[in-house]
């Protein structure tokens, strides 16, 4: 609970006490003092687990605990043996029943000897008199020892006897009331039906009841009694799809779900299918044990369904990076560490993270055990770096029904085309005449591969000067046309990025034909070649006028004087001479000249290397070409056949070779081309289809042996110690079957009946959700440093009952809200406030500010503008401009925020708001929503002026105020009273009393007068929002009512669940 809240509670309690004339007594007196004042005889025996161990843990374990390296003086206080044994020094820390002989007691009371006193001053710890008193009593009573409470299996004890059994509606109440009896506190009266209704609506579906809901409920209370009416309502709420949306919200904080990667570029990550899975799971009331299994190990279940795979996204929600310069292994370790730590917090309620670098100081988890847990997650089938891609392997497609049909159609079409291609190929093979190859050598031979003749290579971008011209007016060397360039100064034709690059082989020679106009020859001609996007290979003839590149290097090499004029000359340039090494691929060619007129024709490469797109007249020609390039691009078996001497090839060899050749056969190309084109088109369409289908990240195990895991010294990725296998922490019960230790076994171990933590941790979070604070306040830490439960027996009873009910979450939630504890009025009585400011004892009903999402959803809902559609991609309601830009990496695909438009996007429940983790929506974080960068199982709840500004001024809240006004114009009578009453009821679920009405009426009068004189201001106000106001309404009147809506939506009563 927020510190601010507690402190302000104290301040106020103090003020009230002062006002009541009670003197300066402060409300924050420690309970211990109170206990001390009681007569000793009445004290119950000290509980080791709940009272003593926490003191030892907090003050002593850092030096006398589990971590052997840090242990001082050989004393260990976290085990019975350690505490009771006599040390080398002769001292014994704890001698049961003997205060004088117990060094522990001696040392903590030595306040006149700072050298000897424990805990030492430099630790910053000190014991209160009450704590010292407690330790003494514990020793005096015989120093009963036990394990840490949460590591012992929960025991379901009978609910205790209470003073007034009538008051208990279910066993929860017996535990709560017994404690209240003991503390001398009275439970509060029952909440009024309408208030309770609002509370339970907000707790189960995250939205308030409508006035009609309230009326129906009150009528049904009238008819069948409060209890029956209430139970019926609870059942109805649990069956509502809104229930799953509300419950999912809490789980998604724990799962650290977000819509971006979270680190560095923080690019978009498509993962919403996992979010929707969580909603569905709660709505379907998936048993919580199954819920755990599917998220941890859905992929390891036999024949996992799509849903079970989506569920494994839980362990992929962690933040990730692809920052340039990242060291793969370092990032990999960080990813796995996040998975281990999150699982530790969410399921075991343990701060496992501490033992990453050293043995845990407080809980019995060794560093080795940490890495044994690490080993369970250490085998993901995907890279450590996310590649800044939404689809970071492993991922899975989550097609809609329509897309599923399209996929099936595409599969069918592709299969048909491939079959046709195979048929045609077989026909061609049969038609090929082997005689063509008789007496043909297979020795590689060099030949001209023409790249440019009458046309530029396919797909190339061509720019610059010159045009194809035809004979007989112009000289043509080959084909029908030649390229004519006329220049004054520098001119050129540039050809770039063809579909097929020109591949250079050893000793290949580039060639081009040129014809210089005898009347007007260029002063210089140049050929240029581009490689990897760079123009840095040039040959020139004539004068040295074009000064690109470094002269005398392959960037600019002179190959001689101008060729003869008035005739076709073949220019030949050994590739090597312009720095083009074998294997290089040319992706651009330029014809360049200085002054004059030149014709260019037939250019290419004298080569024996097969070129992409090249066809051959016969098998032998093909074999020659392929051999020259060492069979590059061919399948290994074909390569092997190719390299056999012709005579040694078997019939099968020849057949295989022929089939490989057919697509490159000039005749074959012609026949197959149409089918290939169709296939290419179908494949491209399939790619587009695949790209349009949503995906989600999943967990999947790598094939083969699991990746080895090591103890990492100080947690550093590059300081490997001993190799470790998978194992579960020794202080918890071992797995009961001998199934292989994988994530599935880990998940099953978590939900085993002997496992003391999982159920306790889960029920505590549900409790926290409803009552504001868990029975264990530190819901993230059930270890020695966590706070012990306020009601240990109740926690255990709930945990065991939950398991006995088959981990039935709805049943559990129902049990909570059916209790009389839950159904109490949340009215605060000064005595119980002073005694129990945080309401841990529950002498009153829960009361606290609603969460960010609920506040926004409620405002939309009350205004009648909430668009309720379950699931789908995340949406971007408007937010102030520039928030993303202020922080984002420019190249990020979430660098710029563009709001969605349309009510079906911007008026959705907040659960669906897009969550950029390095700049989360301010409407959420201002109200304590986490950034979702790391696992969070408990939100703080603060009260700040920035929240007031948000709720008063944020445009969507203003739009909700106006919609609320319009709604009452539509739905209420025409008198201000009727309208004010409905507005108030919509927001608070109760009818306003006379004073409420008077206050609102006075404000309405002032607003009305104000806007009557300022119609322009009125129009400005009511035009805020996605939807424009009803034009039939008078703007000034609507503006005044909008401000009333704004007032009502900002009332404490509306912002609070009470």
């Amino acid at each position, binding site marked *: 609970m927020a510190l601010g*809240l507690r*402190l*302000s509670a*104290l*301040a*106020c*309690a103090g003020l009230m006490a002062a*006002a009541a004339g009670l003197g300066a007594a402060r409300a924050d007196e420690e309970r211990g003092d109170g206990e001390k004042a009681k007569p000793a005889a009445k004290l119950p025996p000290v509980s080791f687990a709940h009272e003593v161990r926490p003191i030892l843990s907090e003050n002593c374990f850092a030096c006398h605990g589990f971590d052997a390296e840090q242990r001082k003086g050989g004393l260990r206080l976290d085990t019975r043996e350690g505490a009771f044994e006599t040390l080398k020094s002769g001292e014994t820390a704890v001698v049961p029943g003997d205060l004088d002989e117990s060094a522990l007691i001696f040392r903590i009371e030595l306040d006149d000897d700072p050298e000897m006193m424990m805990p030492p001053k430099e630790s*910053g710890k000190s014991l209160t008199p009450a704590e010292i008193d407690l330790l003494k009593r514990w020793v005096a009573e015989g120093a009963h020892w036990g394990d840490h409470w949460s590591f012992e299996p929960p025991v379901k004890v009978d609910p205790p006897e209470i003073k007034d059994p009538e008051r208990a509606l279910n066993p929860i109440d017996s535990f709560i009331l017994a404690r209240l009896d003991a503390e001398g506190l009275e439970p509060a009266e029952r909440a009024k039906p309408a208030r309770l209704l609002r509370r339970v609506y907000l707790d189960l579906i995250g939205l308030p009841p409508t006035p009609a809901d309230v009326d129906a409920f009150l009528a049904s209370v009238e008819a069948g009694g409060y209890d029956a009416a209430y139970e019926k309502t609870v059942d109805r709420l649990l069956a509502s799809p809104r229930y799953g949306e509300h419950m999912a919200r809490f789980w998604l904080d724990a799962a650290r779900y977000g819509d971006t990667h979270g680190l560095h570029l*923080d690019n978009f990550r498509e993962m919403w299918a996992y979010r929707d899975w969580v909603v569905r799971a709660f709505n379907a009331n998936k048993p919580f044990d199954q819920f755990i299994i599917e998220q941890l190990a859905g992929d390891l279940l036999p024949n996992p369904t799509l849903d079970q795979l989506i569920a494994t996204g839980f362990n992929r929600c962690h*933040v990730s990076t692809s*920052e340039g*310069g*990242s*060291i793969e292994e370092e990032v990999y370790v960080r990813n796995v560490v996040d998975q281990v730590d999150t699982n530790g917090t969410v399921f075991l309620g343990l*701060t496992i*993270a*501490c033992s990453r670098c050293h043995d845990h100081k407080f809980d019995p988890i060794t560093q080795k055990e940490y890495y044994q847990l690490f080993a369970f997650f250490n085998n993901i089938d995907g890279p450590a770096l996310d590649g800044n891609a939404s689809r970071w392997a492993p991922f899975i497609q989550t097609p809609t029904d329509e897309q599923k049909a399209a996929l099936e159609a595409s599969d069918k079409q592709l299969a048909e085309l491939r079959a046709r291609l195979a048929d045609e190929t077989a026909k061609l093979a049969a038609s090929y005449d082997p005689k063509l190859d008789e007496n043909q050598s297979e020795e590689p031979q060099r030949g001209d591969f023409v790249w440019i003749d009458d046309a530029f290579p396919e797909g190339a971008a061509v720019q610059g000067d010159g045009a194809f011209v035809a004979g007989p007016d112009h000289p043509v060397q080959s084909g029908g046309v030649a390229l004519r360039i006329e220049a004054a100064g520098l001119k050129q034709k540039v050809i770039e990025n063809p579909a097929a690059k020109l591949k250079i082989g050893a000793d290949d020679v580039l060639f081009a034909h040129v014809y210089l106009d005898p009347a007007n020859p260029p002063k210089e001609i140049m050929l240029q070649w581009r490689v990897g996007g760079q123009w840095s290979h040039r040959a020139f003839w004539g004068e040295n006028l074009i000064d690109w590149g470094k002269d005398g290097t392959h960037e600019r090499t002179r190959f001689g004087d101008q060729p003869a004029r008035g005739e076709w000359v073949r220019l030949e340039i050994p590739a090597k001479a312009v720095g083009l090494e074998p294997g290089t691929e040319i992706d651009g060619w330029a014809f360049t000249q200085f002054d004059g007129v030149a014709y260019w024709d037939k250019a290419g490469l004298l080569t024996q290397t097969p070129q992409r797109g090249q066809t051959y007249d016969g098998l032998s020609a093909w074999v020659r070409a392929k051999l020259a390039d060492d069979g590059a691009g061919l399948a290994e078996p074909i390569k092997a056949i190719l390299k056999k001497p012709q005579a040694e090839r078997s019939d099968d060899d020849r057949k295989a070779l022929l089939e490989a050749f057919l697509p490159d056969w000039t005749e074959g190309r012609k026949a197959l081309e149409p089918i290939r084109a169709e296939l290419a088109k179908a494949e491209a369409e399939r790619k587009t289809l695949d790209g349009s289908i949503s995906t989600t990240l999943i967990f999947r195990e790598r094939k083969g042996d699991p990746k080895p895991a090591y103890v990492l010294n100080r947690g550093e990725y590059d300081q490997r110690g001993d190799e470790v296998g998978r194992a579960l922490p020794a202080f918890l019960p071992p797995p009961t079957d001998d199934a292989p230790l994988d994530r599935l076994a880990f998940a099953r171990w978590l939900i085993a009946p002997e496992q003391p933590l999982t159920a306790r941790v889960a029920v505590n979070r549900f409790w926290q959700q409803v009552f504001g604070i868990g029975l264990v306040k530190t819901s*993230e*830490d059930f270890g020695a*440093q966590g706070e012990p439960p306020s009601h240990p027996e109740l926690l255990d009873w709930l945990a065991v009952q939950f398991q006995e009910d088959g981990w039935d979450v709805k049943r559990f939630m129902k049990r909570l809200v059916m209790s009389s504890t839950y159904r109490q009025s*949340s*009215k605060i009585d000064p005595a119980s*406030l002073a005694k129990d400011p945080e309401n841990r004892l529950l002498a009153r009903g829960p*009361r606290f*500010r609603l969460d960010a999402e609920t506040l926004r959803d409620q405002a939309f809902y009350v205004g009648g503008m909430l668009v309720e559609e379950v699931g789908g991609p995340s949406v971007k309601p408007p937010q*102030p401009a520039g928030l993303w830009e*202020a922080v984002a*990496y*420019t190249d990020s695909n979430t660098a710029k925020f563009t709001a969605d438009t349309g009510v079906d996007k911007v008026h959705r429940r907040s659960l669906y708001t897009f969550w950029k983790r*390095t*700049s*989360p929506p301010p409407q959420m974080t*201002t109200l304590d929503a986490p*950034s979702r960068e*790391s696992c969070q199982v408990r939100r*703080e709840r603060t*009260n*700040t*002026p*920035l*929240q*007031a500004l*948000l709720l*008063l*001024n*944020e445009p969507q809240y203003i739009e909700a105020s106006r919609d609320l006004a319009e709604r009452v114009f539509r739905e209420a009578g025409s008198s201000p009273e009727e309208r004010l009453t409905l507005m108030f009821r919509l927001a608070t679920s109760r009818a306003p009393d006379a004073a409420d009405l008077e*206050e*609102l009426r006075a*404000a309405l009068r*002032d607003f009305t007068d*104000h806007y009557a004189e300022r119609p322009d201001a009125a*129009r400005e106000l009511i035009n*805020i929002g996605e939807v424009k106001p009803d034009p039939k309404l008078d703007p000034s009147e609507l503006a005044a009512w909008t*401000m009333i809506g704004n007032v009502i939506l*900002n*009332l*404490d*009563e509306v912002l609070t669940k*009470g």
Partner: protein
Amino acid sequence: MDPIREHIDVETRRHFFGRAGVLGLGGLALTDLLSRTARAAEPAPRPDWPAGIGGLPGLPHFAPTARRAIYLHMNGGPSQHDLLDYKPKMDALFDKDLPESIRQGQRLTTMTSGQARFPIAPTRYKFKQHGQSGMWFSELLPNMAKLADDIALIKTTWTEAINHDPAVTYICTGNQLPGRPSLGAWLSYGLGAMNENLPAFVVMTPKFSTKASPQALYNRLWGAGFLPSKYQGVALRSQGDPVLFLSNPQGVDKAVRRRSLDAINRLNAKQFDSFADPETQARIAQYEMAFRMQMSVPELADISNEPKHVLDLYGPEVHTPGSFARCALLARRLAERDVRFVQLFHRGWDQHGNVAGDLPGQCNDVDRASYALVTDLKQRGMLDDTLVIWGGEFGRTIYCQGALSRENYGRDHHPKCFPVWLAGGGIKAGITYGETDEFGYNVVENPVHIHDVNATILHCMGIDHYRLTYKFQGLDVRLTGVLDQAPVKGILA
């Protein structure tokens, strides 16, 4: 006269306070309540200093030397070789390989770990000594050089992280992984606010010159981590509302807002009568503070009353909203109003290549304004109790990344040493602390871990860094981590 204004004049007193029985406390107690966020103030550490509101009991731990701090964070890793760590011997070693004895197999980012060689790139900029102290500055920082006798320059700050995201998260929150509170959040949690009308921790993200893609920032750098979110830094923006949702909606003027707050607060007071929830009273107080912020923040952001000589001191860019100069001036105005901690995040210092093309512009952004800020504070007598910090998240390599010439070169990330300077309350003026080897690669004297820098900042603010803790996941978590860290005694006055 505006009917609402009239109404407020009468109604505010009559109803809001006078309506007998509101909260059952009477006007005085309520006034008191409204003026405080949470709890009674700690006594001020010095009589002339305002008391902290809402801080922890027992803090400050000892008499502070600074009551507020301004942190100028240069995001991306400014090149110490070209700015503040002069290595004259490098010139003769142009394009020579960095000796393995210096690099010692230290891990490199994968941006340069594949380089065949690590050729030395001497700075192309001239260095000169300045002031009585003789502190070295490069010609890129002509104005900052005038602070030679005002600042303490640590040349030997180091960190473990070698990539931006973890490194900047580390220096700002004490941990490389997200989830921890930032320095400013710790300060406001520990010490509370000194001004009731402004947030205790304000952040600005000024514009920058580089045309290359600058590194990202993250809200977590000024976030509250596991501390309550009210301690997170509030971004003061140059676009739109200076503070999010500060302005009334269009068509709502101050009078309407006041009138609506009166209605809200009165109905809330009635709610308190029924439920007696102290949180309701706190809510009334927060709504009132929001109203006061609606006036105090625009006043703060409006520099029209600044005298010409002050504006001139910051340079012409001060007239451009969102410039570093404007933000620096606003930082002074915030400090003047006793905002506890102000942090500027200036991006674009990640020169993997094109140092010559990129770095001068970055320096130009901040050089004059950094000088102006310290000078302005000094002229007002505020430097005595204000701490100013300047630095990035790591340094850059002496060896070249990419193409090397005398005129231009690039530098990779270098975590083993980088400069940070501090000035003001409690800091020795005019000293250079720590020494690096002649390659500017390793620390040879007085290493200062980034945790030590943070411990120093806390120390100046009167906090024993070891004792400022928050219980999280069973641990007493602190900003400065678990290892032995200490304030840098050598730079403390």
